[in-house]
């Protein structure tokens, strides 16, 4: 992401050097400049207006709504200052939501990254069909979370599901995935990892292919075994990739919604921060002010993680 903020002139194609722009005339604001000004507005304004209206404005609105005791749909609202925040941070429900969010995030991020790395190692060889396998493994990442959730609800079903059928062959009873809240969380985590591990795999694969050959050859000459090479060379070389994946995966799982909504509509055992924000406003409670409070806290978390990412990336750029 460090190249994002770099100036246009800093990344010219190697063959053409961008000429230093000297304005053709010394007029302060001539016809051409005015023309460009208008062209810019005509081209960029629609996008910018939509972004301002539907991305920036809601952030401010949320902060305002979060100070109200307001029932969604009601004409009036009572300003209550920080009451919603006090309630949020002292409610026993919040402790449970924080626990579920933490377990869900750690398990989905850890699971998809670990499996992603394993798959990347499997894919990182020159054999026929590896391109197909790479695409196949990536494919769940682009599929509808609703469709994926329905498939897995069916597969996890304790009476007619295929998982129960497989367990029956070894005379094991099916776990009560839908009724036991902690098993519901495990179930949702499994599905989320299944959907996202291919993304981690493709990114790890790119990282693996960037490991310099001569380093690996030098290690082989020094007599390092496979495991030793992996631990002492490949894994450290992958650390920027691991860090990137860690941050993007944490951000993604803090936003996970579709699968939770479809597999566990009531959110018993699976109510994360984002799901709570949804349930509070749209799950029958109609607590608009409180939902905005949860959303504001969630956004604060996202900003925190992005800031950490930028700080670390900044450091890394410097000692390269």
């Amino acid at each position, binding site marked *: 992401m460090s190249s994002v903020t770099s100036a246009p002139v800093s990344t010219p194609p190697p063959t053409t050097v961008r000429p230093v722009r000297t304005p053709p005339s010394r007029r302060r604001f001539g016809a051409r400049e005015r023309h460009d000004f208008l062209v810019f507005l005509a081209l960029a304004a629609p996008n910018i207006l939509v972004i301002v209206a539907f991305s920036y*404005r809601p952030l401010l609105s949320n902060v305002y709504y979060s100070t109200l005791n307001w029932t969604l749909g009601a004409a009036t609202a009572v300003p209550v200052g920080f009451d919603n925040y006090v309630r949020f941070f002292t409610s026993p429900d919040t402790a449970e939501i924080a626990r579920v969010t933490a377990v869900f995030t750690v398990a989905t991020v850890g699971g998809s990254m670990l499996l992603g790395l394993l798959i990347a190692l499997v894919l990182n060889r020159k054999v026929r069909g590896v391109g197909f396998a790479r695409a196949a493994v990536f494919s769940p990442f682009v599929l509808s979370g609703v469709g994926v959730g329905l498939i897995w609800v069916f597969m996890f079903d304790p009476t007619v599901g295929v998982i129960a*059928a497989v367990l029956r062959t070894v005379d094991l009873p099916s776990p009560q995935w839908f009724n036991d809240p902690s098993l519901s969380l495990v179930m949702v985590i499994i599905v989320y990892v299944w959907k996202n591990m291919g993304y981690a795999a493709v990114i790890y694969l790119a990282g693996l292919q960037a490991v310099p050959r001569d380093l690996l050859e030098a290690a082989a000459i020094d007599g390092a075994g496979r495991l030793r090479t992996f631990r002492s060379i490949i894994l450290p070389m992958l650390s920027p990739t691991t860090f990137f994946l860690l941050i993007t995966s944490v951000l993604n799982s803090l936003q996970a919604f579709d699968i939770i909504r479809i597999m566990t509509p009531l959110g018993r055992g699976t109510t994360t921060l984002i799901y709570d924000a949804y349930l509070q406003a749209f799950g029958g409670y109609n607590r608009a002010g409180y939902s905005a409070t949860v*959303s504001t806290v969630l956004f604060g978390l*996202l900003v925190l993680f992005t800031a950490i990412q930028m700080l670390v990336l900044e450091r890394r750029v410097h000692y390269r």
Partner: protein
Amino acid sequence: MTMSAPGHDQATRTHPLAPRSLAAAAVGSYLPLVLAVAVVALPLVWMLLSSFKTPGELVTQDLAVLPHSLAPDNYLQAAREVPFVRLFVNSVIVTVIGAGIKVLLAIFTAYALVFVRFPAKKLIFAAILVTLMVPPQVSLLPNYILVTGLGGADTYWGIILPGLGTGFGTFLLRQHFMTLPISILEAAEIDGAGHWRRLTRIVIPISAPSIVTVALVSIVFEWNDYLWPLVIVTDPSMMTLPVGLTLLSNTESDALAYGVLMAGSVAVIVPVLIVFASLQRYVIAGLTQGAVKD
């Protein structure tokens, strides 16, 4: 151990291999590969097979892998319970219009940011990028209140409008436009070609792969989008497929209904799978952008 160091193959390629270790290598290479693909593919295959099974076949304790017949009973049943065709059409409309406008806005904004003189362009770009960090979930309630207030509930424009702003597409195309040889554009400018001509005759044609990438990612996103359509639409005839499937799963809590639900999943998953299978390079490149490049 399934782990193998990259470069292992490099090493073996330079040395001729004995047939015995070749065979071992083939098993060692393919077994994990097949396993990884199977883990991903089997649930999808199961969905497809089950969508053709009768309720009797689904609730039986003796699991049969293949359905007895390929009669589309579940699809017809789904269409009786929800306006299935209408949902599909709605999804197509929302996806085509939404993704189409999004791509146009991304092209225009990126062109303006790279090729049109304007003060504080870098600041504007940064402000657009920040939106990559604002997930739609956070803006859900304020946007719901604004759009319903404007009468956008249960309308196509209400579903489409809030998602039209694009930080991702703008970012991707801007990065690409900056690599274009400026000399061509300057030559065109000297020849008297205005911005519109330069954009439509030069920049867009030579940027086709990047534009396709942005388009595909937008299409996939619009098609799968769930949370916003879920709250803004309550009229079944205006629902998109993912929202309609929620309705189906709410009305059908019976175990007998899984066949119908799998038919619904096929309808929402298979079109994206087809698009992905035919153009996967672009889709993967688009979705992993920013990570793979440095």
